[in-house]
C-alpha cells in the first residue's frame, strides 16, 4: 500500500483581502496593527461573493474537501470566523469541509465543541477540524495571555474532546476552565468525533500534544525539510503513545499552478505567489513571537533560523517550499514525490493565492481537477 493509493485533495482558500490601498509597502507589518481603515466593506462584499463561487466550484470539480482557516487583524484573510464560512457553504456542497480552525483557547471550548458539532450535524458528517495554537500575531489581537497560551490550549482541547466523546452532563474542573454542567447540544454526527488535527509550526510541544492525543498533525510556515523532520518525530511519538500511524494522520501543504506549459504557468503564478510571501505574510519578529508564546529554547531556535514572513525571492522560495508551477505532468510528478517523501496522503492545496484574479483561480482549479488529479490517481494503479 502506497500513500499514493489514498491521496486526498483539499482545496485551501485563505479568502485574502486584496487589493490593498497605496502605501502598504511602507508598513512594517500587514498584520496586527495595519489599520483596518484600509478595509473597504464594498470591496469585501464583492470578494466574499467571488470566493464563495470559487469554493463551490471546487466542490463541483470533485475535490475531496474545502478548507478554511482563521486569522485576526489582517489582510491575509477575511475569515476571522471560519465556522461562518463553513455554515454558508454546507448546504451548497457535498465534499468534506475542513475548518482549520479556531484556536480553542480563544473561544469558550464548550461553545466551540457545540459549533463544530452543529456543522457536523448540519453537513451530515462532512466536517473535519483542526486545533491551531494560533500564530503569534493572534495573541496581539485577542485578549489571551501568550505566556499561558499553550497550557490553556491543551486544556481547551481536553474540554472539547471530553464534550464530544463522553455522555453529558459532566463536570469539568480545570486550571482555566470550570464547568458545572458540560453537556453540549448537539453532539457530533461522526463518532467518536469529526477527524481532528493539530496545526502547528513544528514546535516540540504541539507535535507531542498531537501524538499524545492521537490526533492528526498539520504544519504551516516552515520549510519542507524542517517539515519532514517534524513528521518523522510526530510519527515516532504517535507510535510511542500507542496510536496507529497511517498516511492520513499527516496533512501537508502544496502551492500549485497548472497551465499549458511550464513557462506560462510560472509567469501566471509567480507574481501572486510572491505577493503571498512578500505582502500577505508580512509582519515583524515581535508580532510573530509575543512574550511567552514560545519556550525560551524554541525562541532561540527561531531567531537563529530563517523565516518566511515578508521577504522572498522566487528561487529561494521554490527551493525550500512545496511550490510547483507547470504542466499537469510536472505538477503531478512533483506532488507524487512530495507525498512519498512525507509519507502522507492528505494534501492541502493552495490553488488560490495572494492577489490571484478570479480567472486564474478558475483556470487553476479546473486544470488541477481535470488534468492533475486523474494523473495522480493513475499512479495509484501503477504502484499496486
Amino acid at each position: 500500500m502506497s500513500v499514493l493509493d489514498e491521496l486526498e485533495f483539499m482545496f485551501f482558500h485563505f479568502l485574502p483581502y486584496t487589493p490593498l490601498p497605496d502605501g502598504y509597502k511602507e508598513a512594517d507589518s500587514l498584520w496586527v496593527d495595519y489599520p483596518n481603515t484600509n478595509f473597504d466593506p464594498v470591496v469585501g462584499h464583492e470578494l466574499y461573493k467571488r470566493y464563495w463561487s470559487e469554493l463551490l466550484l471546487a466542490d463541483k470539480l470533485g475535490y475531496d474537501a474545502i478548507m478554511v482557516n482563521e486569522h485576526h487583524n489582517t489582510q491575509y484573510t477575511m475569515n476571522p470566523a471560519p465556522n461562518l464560512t463553513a455554515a454558508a457553504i454546507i448546504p451548497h456542497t457535498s465534499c468534506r469541509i475542513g475548518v482549520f480552525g479556531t484556536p480553542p483557547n480563544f473561544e469558550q471550548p464548550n461553545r466551540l465543541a457545540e459549533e463544530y458539532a452543529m456543522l457536523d450535524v448540519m453537513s451530515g458528517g462532512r466536517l473535519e477540524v483542526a486545533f491551531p495554537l494560533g500564530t503569534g500575531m493572534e495573541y496581539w489581537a485577542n485578549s489571551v495571555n501568550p505566556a499561558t497560551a499553550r497550557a490553556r490550549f491543551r486544556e481547551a482541547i481536553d474540554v472539547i474532546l471530553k464534550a464530544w466523546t463522553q455522555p453529558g452532563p459532566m463536570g469539568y474542573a480545570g486550571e482555566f476552565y470550570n464547568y458545572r454542567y458540560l453537556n453540549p447540544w448537539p453532539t457530533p454526527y461522526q463518532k467518536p468525533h469529526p477527524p481532528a488535527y493539530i496545526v502547528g509550526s513544528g514546535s516540540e510541544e504541539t507535535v507531542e500534544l498531537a501524538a499524545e492525543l492521537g490526533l492528526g498533525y498539520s504544519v504551516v510556515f516552515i520549510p519542507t525539510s524542517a517539515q519532514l523532520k517534524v513528521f518523522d518525530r510526530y510519527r515516532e511519538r504517535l507510535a510511542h503513545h500507542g496510536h496507529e500511524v497511517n498516511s492520513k494522520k499527516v496533512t501537508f501543504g502544496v502551492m500549485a499552478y497548472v497551465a499549458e506549459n511550464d513557462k506560462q504557468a510560472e509567469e501566471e503564478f509567480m507574481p501572486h505567489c510572491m505577493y503571498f510571501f512578500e505582502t500577505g505574510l508580512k509582519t515583524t519578529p515581535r508580532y510573530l513571537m509575543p512574550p511567552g508564546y514560545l519556550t525560551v529554547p524554541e525562541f532561540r531556535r527561531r531567531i537563529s533560523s530563517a523565516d518566511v514572513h515578508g521577504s522572498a525571492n522566487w528561487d529561494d522560495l521554490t527551493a525550500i517550499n512545496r511550490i510547483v508551477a507547470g504542466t499537469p505532468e510536472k505538477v503531478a510528478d512533483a506532488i507524487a514525490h512530495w507525498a512519498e517523501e512525507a509519507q502522507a496522503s492528505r494534501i492541502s492545496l493552495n490553488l488560490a493565492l495572494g492577489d490571484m484574479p478570479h480567472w486564474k483561480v478558475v483556470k487553476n482549479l479546473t486544470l488541477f481537477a481535470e488534468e492533475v488529479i486523474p494523473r495522480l490517481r493513475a499512479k495509484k494503479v501503477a504502484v499496486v
Partner: protein
Amino acid sequence: MNATEGFEKLHLSVNGTDTVVLALGDAAAPPLVFFHGAGTFHGWEFARPWAAQFRVLIPHHPGFAESGDMDGLREFGDFVLHYGALFDQLGLHRDVNLVGLSLGGRLAARFAISQQHRLRRLVLVAPAGLQVPEAPMEDLFRIPPEQIPAKLVKNFEVLLPWLPTDPHDLDFAVDRYRETRTVAIVAWDEPFDRVIPRWMSTMTVPTLVMWGADDALIPVGQGKAWADLVPDSELRVFDDAGHLLLDESPAAVQAVAEFCA
C-alpha cells in the same frame, strides 16, 4: 562589564525555585533589599554605595537573570509568597528596608501590604502597576524591544556599557525574551494591580516615592497618585533622570540611603 564583581552570590531553593541573591556589605549591617524591574541587563552598579551602611541584598526574581523559573507562576501574588518564604530563609523578619524599581516597585508595594511587619522603610522608585488616566504608563509590551533602552534613561551613555555591541546579539535577545515572558505571565492580563489601590490604605510603613523628572515609560505625573495612595509617604522628584533613576542620579541613590538610615 562584570555586573556582579565583588558581590557575594547566595544560592537558595525557595519552595522549589532556584533563587540567586546578590549580597554586598557587612552581614551584620541593617538589611536593604532591592527588587529589580522587568529587565536586569543594566546591572547593579547603583547599589554599591549603599553597602557602606547596609547589608545590600538583591534577589533575582523567579524567571529573571540567574534565578530559575517558578513552576506554576500565574500572578503577582505568587511572587509575594515567594518573597515571604525567601525573607524567612534569610532571617529578614523585621526592620528591613525594601526598595523596588518599576515592576519591582509594584512587587514591593504588594509585598508591603501583606508583609509590613517585616519592613522598616519602603522606597518605591517609579513603581509600575497603577492606572492613572491623566498620566498613563507606557504599555511595555507595545514597545518594540529595540526601542526600549532609549525609553529607559535620559542620558543614553549610562546604558551603553550594558548593551551588546552587536544589535542582533543572540544571547542578549534570548535573555530579554525570557524576562519579558516572566513579566507577561503575571502582567499581560493585569497590567494594573487590583490589590494596591484597594489595600494600600492599610500599609503604614514610612515610604519614599521617587521619580525621574524625565521618565519616558511611567510619567512623573504618577508620583502624586502614589504619594496620595500610600498613607505615610513623601514624593521626591529628581531632575535630569529617566525611568532608571538610580542609574542616572547619584543624588537619588543617596536619598535612598538617607531615608533608610
